[in-house]
């Protein structure tokens, strides 16, 4: 139990990135050759406002140990307001999941701009380490191919 499994545990994190800021910021981290842990897998959406909070639930159910939503800083949304909607929806969902016993470390949101390649790395490191400390998500993970 516990410590041993947790240190060996490599979290699987699904991230939803807006095309204009965070995805571009992650690309910038790449062009700047900034290294970070490989645990985060990205789904590109045009705007963080597209992210239905139920995607978070769905990702956790389908086997993600953590979920990250990242958008433009307030005021910078390419579509003006999408990140504000995302912020509100996500805050409620995160609180709710915590209420059900889903560690808040698994459910993260960040603002990363197109010029913040270095911040993207920091975010990845923090999210990965956070999920690592709380261990695998098995609470309501779908048991695939159950009899």
């Amino acid at each position, binding site marked *: 139990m516990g410590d041993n499994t947790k240190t060996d545990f490599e979290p*699987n994190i*699904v991230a939803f990135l807006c*095309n*204009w*800021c965070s*995805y*571009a910021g*992650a*690309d910038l*981290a*790449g*062009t700047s*050759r*900034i*290294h*970070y842990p*490989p645990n985060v*897998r*990205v*789904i*590109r*959406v*045009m*705007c963080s*406002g*597209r*992210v*239905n*909070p139920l*995607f978070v639930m*769905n*990702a956790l*159910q*389908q*086997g*993600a140990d953590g979920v990250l939503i990242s958008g*433009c800083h307030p*005021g*910078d949304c*390419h*579509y*003006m*307001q*999408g990140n504000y*909607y*995302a912020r509100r*929806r996500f805050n409620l969902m995160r609180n709710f999941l915590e209420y059900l016993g889903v560690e808040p470390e698994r459910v993260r949101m960040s603002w990363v*701009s*197109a*010029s*913040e390649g270095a911040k993207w*790395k920091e975010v990845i490191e923090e999210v990965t380490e956070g999920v690592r400390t709380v261990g695998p998500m098995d609470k309501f993970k779908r048991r695939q191919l159950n009899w």
Partner: protein
Amino acid sequence: MNGKPKIGVYVCHCGTNIAGTVDVEDVVRFAQTLPDVVVARNYSYMCSDPGQALITDDIEKIGLNRVVVASCSPRMHEPTFRKTLNGAQLNPYFLEMANIREQCSWVHEDSVAATEKAKRIIEAAVAKARRLEALDQKEVDVEPSCLIIGAGIAGIQAALDIADAGFKVYVVEKSPTVGGHMAQLDKTFPTLDCSACILTPKMVDVANHPNIELMTYSQVEEISGYIGNFDIKVRVKSRFVDMEKCTGCGDCASSCRQAGRISNEFDEGVGMRGAIYLPFPQAVPAKYTIDKENCLFLAKGKCGESPKCKDACQAGAVNFDLEDKMVEFKVGTIIVATGFDVFDARLKPEYAYGVYDNVLTALEFERMVNASGPTGGKIVMLERGKKKKKKKEGAEEEQPRMPGSVTFIQCVGSRDKSVGNEYCSRVCCMYTAKLAHLVKEKVPGADVTIFYMDVRAFGKGFEEFYDRVRREGVRYIRGNPSEIYKKGDKLVVKAEDTLTSTPLEHEADMVVLSVGLVPRSDNREIIDLLKLSQSSDLFYLEAHPKLRPVDTASDGIYLAGVCQGPKDIPDAVAQAKGAASAAMIPMASGKVKVEAQTSIVDEATCRGCGFCVQVCPYTAIELLEVNRMGWPVQVARVNEALCKGCGACAAACLSGSVQQRSFKDLQLLPQIQALGVK
């Protein structure tokens, strides 16, 4: 639609950029096992002609109907491969990119982990590709006209180019005259040609060009629409002077009770003006303007017996009843050329700007050396507080003293994290050299010293000019002064000569701060109007730093001049010409493709709650009544020309009736599922 998916996966080596970290062969073997994948290949550069030909061949010979390219970021080459598909008669939206370079091989060192991650990324891309749908690339007509915001040299140049090409141009300038900062300058570096001599003809052209409608003293208030079809609303502020009648004689200005009492923005406060004024003699249009904050009649309702300017104007142009005018028009493209502010030297209190009269900013000094400036081009010691008094007394003015020593400090507000400006302003080294040269020219024998961190003389003729100035006796000391204080009637610059590690206290009559360029304080207005992004230096963000330097993220909106980042006059002009050219492309072709990844409503399940209408920032969705099997029901409907494809509506819809094309729940959930599997 295209029947059962037949997917081709193409894994790019990108030389060693990907293949150096990711085991490409292994990834290809994995891709072959994925559902609906009928072929998986790898190639050294997928974006090259032979790389694209692989895809084209497979589409034609194997009958692929979906393509996954695992290579660089879609932000890089998605357009490239969309064209490839298009060329092979496959709808370009049957492409999905797997970013295994920027977000994989370049950011991970461990080859095993990177290879594993690349597989997951490709698996998710295939999961989405299986559900991709063909999208219509719709076209809209482009209004053959352009709005240019800002009439400095960049705005003027862009306007002239577009107008010369035969398109209608609307130029909106906030201040009463065109010309911008360039009009304030005396000479330009490194050639020392007279700024006014090269600028004023263009200023006149812009005002007289038959294709240009110039609106000075005006502000854009509303912009709506999209490329090809922007609706613009401009407020033309009242000058309280009838533009038709004013002859520009200036009788009004000299009669103004406030004459000489108000600091003239154009002269950076070194010179004074009245409440009715012309910013400078060569202003275009040469029409007077009443500054309503300072006009006694407008501000207080009373100006002696009657307003003197009105009495003085023989043309009867002064009219206090004139009101702001709203002008509405349509354009196809927009160029933003709003320029910059100079750094506020008060933010470096150690330099005592605003404390000592003879600590000046370079732009103030520029006005002073300008022959048409407030001192008639003479370099004189300033006594800032006393001016009014002197004028009031009307006494014989005693000749002001010329400074015997002038010291410049470079990089004030540039390359300085303490004030939040990390960037180099790119013009200060050279304008300092130019000003130093002018001191040498105008004050024979003056001691001219420049404190600098590095001298960046990178442009055409720059190094040669820097050499020349040094030969003229200008002393360069490498060091960043820490303080300026007064000793007797001298200013003392405290610094360290970092080349010799000698602390020094350098005395001067006058200190000029070579202030950097900063984003305009009113940038926010434009950002809100146009939804522009900013880069980390807070200048407007171009669409791509290398390949789309004049475009913005929004189609049909372009950048010119310093609003995008510091640059000198030739660079600003070059960018303006670039922006003009970019704006003319859609105008010349008359048509432009619009966003295809728009939202769509399933009217059969829509319950008409209007959440989508509420969240849409583009008012692209409306509720309307339809007949559902005989019943009148409200449903949402998307106007695809207005929809920008953000998808906020899709996330707001509780019944799942609103979906964003290419980002449907049906396409994203399988992606999530694919990524969930470890």
